[in-house]
């Protein structure tokens, strides 16, 4: 498997930290900063953001030595990411419009498809099993405030 990262990973990591730090500092500055003796709500996040950006810079700079770690990372797994993220989003949307039973089925079924060894049939049985648990344990026994079915 080829690595997803072309350069040393620490360049990307450092850049990400600089980005997060500067973004936090930028947003933080939009709140009143105040003085050292009477700090406003913007002081702390701005300070933390600036320090984070500085550390990100240090991470990127110290990456030069190139330990070759980056080569060991396997390719990005689109299938797993797509299934887990898609399944969870499906739970949120279906849960809002359809109720607990279809939402449970959706999250388990879609996530299960993320593993390339799971067949459709196995995913189906697993999801049905979890639907039963959802009804018996969460809806009936724990009295979860979540309608089994909801229309519209």
């Amino acid at each position, binding site marked *: 498997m080829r690595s997803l990262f072309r350069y040393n990973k*620490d360049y990307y990591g450092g850049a990400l930290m600089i980005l997060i730090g500067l973004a936090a500092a930028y947003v933080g500055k939009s709140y009143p900063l105040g003085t050292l003796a009477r700090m406003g709500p913007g002081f702390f996040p701005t300070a933390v953001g600036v320090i984070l950006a500085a550390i990100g810079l240090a991470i990127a700079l110290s990456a030069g030595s190139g330990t070759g770690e980056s080569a060991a990372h396997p390719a990005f797994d689109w299938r797993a990411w797509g299934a887990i993220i898609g399944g969870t989003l499906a739970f949120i949307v279906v849960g809002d419009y359809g109720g607990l039973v279809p939402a449970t089925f959706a999250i388990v079924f879609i996530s299960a498809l993320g593993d390339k060894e799971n067949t459709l049939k196995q995913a189906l049985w697993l999801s049905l099993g979890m639907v039963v648990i959802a009804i018996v344990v969460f809806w009936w026994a724990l009295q979860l405030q979540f309608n089994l079915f909801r229309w519209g």
Partner: protein
Amino acid sequence: MIEQSLLGLWYGFGVAFEPHNLMWSLFGVLVGNLIGVLPGMGPLSAISILLPLTFGMHPVPAILMLAGIFYGSQYGGAIGAILLNLPCHPPHAVTCLDGYPLTKQGKGGKALGLAMLASFFAASFGILVMIFFSPLLVAVAFKFGPSEIFSVMLLGLLAGSTMSRGSPLKGVAMVLVGLLCGVVGTDVNSGMMRFTFGVPELADGVSLVAIALGLFAVGDFLLNVNRAVYTTHGAGVRVRDMLPTWAELKHAFMPTLRGTLIGTLFGAMPGTGPTITTFLAYAFERKVSKTPERFGHGAMEGVVSPEAASHSKTQVDFIPTMCLGIPGDPIMALILGALMIQGIAPGPQLITEHPDLFWGLIASFWVGNVLLLMLNVPLIGIWTKVLQVPYRYLFPSAMFFIAVGVFSTNNSLFEIGEVLAFGAFGAVFAALNFPMAPILLGFVLGPMVEENFRRALLLSRGSMLVFIQHPISAAFVGASALLIVVQTVSYFRGTRGKLGVLQAT
């Protein structure tokens, strides 16, 4: 002071033995044990998943249950490590080194039995330390003002992020990210909304459950699905195999004691992770052994000493968490967060204000550890079966439990989205070799750090010198500075060493 502790303990046993509390404690250790045995699930994911359940409970049973989950899952982790060579949880990685060879030699049951006894011994020792050390620490902690609290938190954050494995800089970066996550929500001093971007659900801040589950469960799944290679052949263990002989007990006693002391020492130091503790215990045991060549091929000492170290550390870790309100590692941060959700602020007042909680917790450690010892013997057959549940069935089911669990905390679907966001972020960070645990540490401590920093400077009228003018605070600041220097020096030495190797090859 000692009589007071003993009286408190007596009272605590009364609390722990109340049927209601006992039941939740039993439930905690049982479920914790089960989740700890499951491949890929450690105490952090176990506590995160069950955290929503505690919100409707009285604080005492809630905390007893969470503590039970914690040490229950630790016991569970040892089972996978010894029998199947699966380090379900990083601290147990070192247990695999000698535990699995022992299983291959047919001594797996014995290794498990001895590891459990060693853990029990170590936990008991840790509890004793906790009983007698906590009141002393509390006496000191009452002298703490905002500047002292800030400095000790600074030390805790620095130690927690740099002493674990990996690059110290990245650990610090993750703590800062955690601090920023903690800022989200309404500012307590001015009532201003910060980093909410107009989303009303964020006014109360990011939910602790969402952040913990996102980072430690969903993030893990994203990285491990289709990757995790787990052996599925289990070794059957009978109860009879687990009972050690007298000679074996005698042989294992000294390593257990050494492991216990190492764990106690490191538990008292903030920020030293459990993984580093177990590795040190293993390395030390190999150094003092007369036959170091047996290590890695099934040396019983290499199993009992790290297990003992991890359990005594676990208990001692509760001291700063309960008495100062400063968690030593992410698991403690999670338990601290759970307490704060219950409206209880851990700190020096905890023992006097909530004696039922404090002493009940300590007593329940003992009760819980005895329960575990009794449970593990008959249930060992079931655990070995559970160990063989394939990951591909496990993670979709876990996704459902996570979604429902998070929903149940506030009946809010929005928080499930938070879990997803933190899961994706966590996986990206982990893929870039950043440690995830410090985020949680920063998140839990963030609001307190800011609050005390602001208060200290308000009292000193903006003079930063206040942190080094107060002697206790100065000591912590000095320790933090020392830590940075030591880390920098060892880091540069490390890279130079590596470069040397590179040039040599």
